[in-house]
């Protein structure tokens, strides 16, 4: 599938602004018309990028004319929000080595939700895989003492040397990050691991990654949807789950975070549920107890980001739908970040 508007160059209006305003970097839409994309992961051997979206997981093959191919399909649909409402399916993706794709699903009700570990080749399959082809199914985390109604809406994926970490949005009294230990490259049972709500008093762990030195889990707490400026940046010890540091960012709803492999700078995307016009890509600078958020790019409901094999930053955004047509995009930031 080739996009009609592929390589549509979006030149920021701010380029035309008076001197004194930082110009937004040039961006390129590499794929559009995607239904609510919300997760990205890079296959290092091919440089292809996997994209989680409402209707499934796609493989984005970059090149002169980027193409999108369905890798995993046949998901259910869940609805996020009470208005605006968004159809959601698999929400997050990550790589386990080069040959397994981790799919954090959000398409089912809490307690039935699972994380799939799918074998992947170097190109899209002729017919999309389905959950039946999974090498491992992690979860569900059922209702019980740890989670009153069971876990669901798995979103962020971080893969360490010894474990996979998944952000969950089931029990709001706990705000779990779940963990699956890796033994001989095989993922073990998915268990609630870090109760982020108890650590931070703020809802919804969503974005997750490792610090550049791999020592800390770095997690964004999205906060309440209808409360502005309450999103947090947090760090945890991945071995014992203990909270290390909590920073107020002043941003609304950080949905994803990524470190630049070149510069080590931390970038985040803010969905900004109540003020979507304020959403975008931000650089977070940490100095002691203070975090400064500097806007890099205005975006329309961004949901995730990752640095590609080419070193460029790729971002998913929901966009604004007209005529009920999917309006999601994958945007490449052409500048060096």
């Amino acid at each position, binding site marked *: 599938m080739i996009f009609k508007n592929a390589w549509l160059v979006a030149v920021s209006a701010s380029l035309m602004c008076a001197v004194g305003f930082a110009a937004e970097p040039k961006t390129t839409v590499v794929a559009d018309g995607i239904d609510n994309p919300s997760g990205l992961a890079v296959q290092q051997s091919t440089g292809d990028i996997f994209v989680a979206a409402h209707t499934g997981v796609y493989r984005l093959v970059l090149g002169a004319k980027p193409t999108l191919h369905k890798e995993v399909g046949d998901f259910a649909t869940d609805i996020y929000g009470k*208005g605006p409402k968004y159809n959601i399916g698999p929400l997050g993706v990550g790589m386990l080595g080069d040959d397994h794709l981790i799919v954090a699903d959000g398409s089912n009700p809490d307690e039935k939700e699972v994380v799939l570990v799918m074998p992947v080749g170097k190109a899209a399959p002729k017919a999309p895989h389905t959950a039946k082809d999974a090498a491992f199914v992690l979860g569900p985390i059922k209702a019980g003492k740890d989670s009153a109604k069971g876990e669901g809406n798995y979103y962020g994926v971080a893969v360490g040397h010894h474990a996979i970490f998944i952000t969950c949005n089931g029990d709001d009294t706990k705000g779990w990050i779940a963990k699956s230990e890796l033994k001989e490259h095989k993922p073990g049972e998915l268990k609630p691991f870090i109760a982020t709500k108890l650590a931070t008093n703020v809802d919804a762990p969503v974005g997750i990654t490792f610090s550049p030195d791999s020592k800390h889990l770095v997690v964004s707490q999205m906060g309440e949807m209808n409360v502005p400026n309450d999103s947090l940046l947090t760090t945890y010890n991945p071995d014992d789950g203990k909270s290390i540091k909590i920073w107020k960012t002043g941003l609304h709803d950080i949905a994803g975070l990524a470190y630049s492999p070149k510069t080590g700078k931390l970038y985040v995307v803010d969905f900004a549920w109540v003020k979507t016009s304020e959403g975008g890509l931000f650089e977070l600078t940490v100095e002691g107890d203070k975090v400064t958020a500097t806007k890099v790019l205005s975006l329309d409901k961004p949901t995730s980001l990752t640095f590609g094999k080419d070193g460029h930053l790729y971002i998913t955004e929901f966009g604004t739908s007209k005529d009920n047509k999917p309006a999601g995009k994958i945007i490449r930031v052409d500048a060096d970040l």
Partner: protein
Amino acid sequence: MPRRFGLSFSLYSPRLLSCASLVLMLGGFGYMSFSPISAEDKPPIEKSSIIVFKVPSGLPEIIHPADNPITPEKVALGAQLYFDPRLSSDGKVSCASCHDPAKGWSNGEAVATGVNGLKGGRSAPTVLNTAFQVFQFWDGRMNTLEEQALGPIQNPIEMNMTLPEVVKRLNGIPGYKSQFQKVFKTDVTSEGIGKAIAAFERTVLSGDSPYDRFTAGDAKALSPAAERGRDLFFGAARCSSCHSGPNFTDNAFHNIGIGMHHKEPDHGRYASSKLEGDKGAFKTPTLRDIARSAPYMHDGSLKTLEEVVAHYNKGGFPNEYLDEEIFPLKLTKEQIADLVTFMKEGLSSSKYPDVKPPKLP
């Protein structure tokens, strides 16, 4: 241990405040104490001072707006304005009429009663710990206490005044005029009224409860029933989904189904946010000293905490916008009783701010 923090007094305190003068000015606020730091700590040239203001244990520090630093004189002025019915058109309704310290800083009735006996549409929210609120009013239509304080004065069914009217009336009272001159270096202004009342309200704090002492390590601070209730509160009863953090609120808005059975329900937050999903959503209130502020909910429709827990236990009132955290809890009678015990005993402050009306100018 009580948390302490310093407050800058550079604008409004031309002299080092003495303990005696503070105690005098703050007369009735026995729960609150100010004390100056030693003269040695004071910058010798600038005429400023730092005072220390005790915040009850379990509460975070209070952030005072940069343009409205707290001073004892301002708090004293704010208290007078708060209790003064001359701020209303018929001279009978003060802030304290609907936010009465003796009634949990609410009014003990389902809805508020304003001038000429007119009834409001919503319950009077407590003033306790509003210092920590991100939004004011049940629908969060204003952010600061300074803005909020001027709202009811101008509401036709509450105090029914225009700001020019109230400013003119107060400027005719020498005691107010002189205090405004001292505190704000101006005659009475509406901005000053808002700032003084807000500064007073930021001293109305509820903390240092058995729950706080239990959390701090005193294993005997809670009775066995209250301790079981605490475990339910943060666990199976799921209260902490929304009533979280030191002030027992997430400062957000949720639809729990209250009032949604009406033909034309109060849409709450939606009126100002215009987000469809906010229909019927109201601000999560604090639960500190909750035993004192019955009846409950934004419309005062539930008379007791037992009724409140029963509402949640049945999964609220189902409607299109019901928060996803609201679903049947299957709590037993014993669990409901324990939960209520936790809220009644565990969240009651050791020194409730039962502020008495000050002498008015």
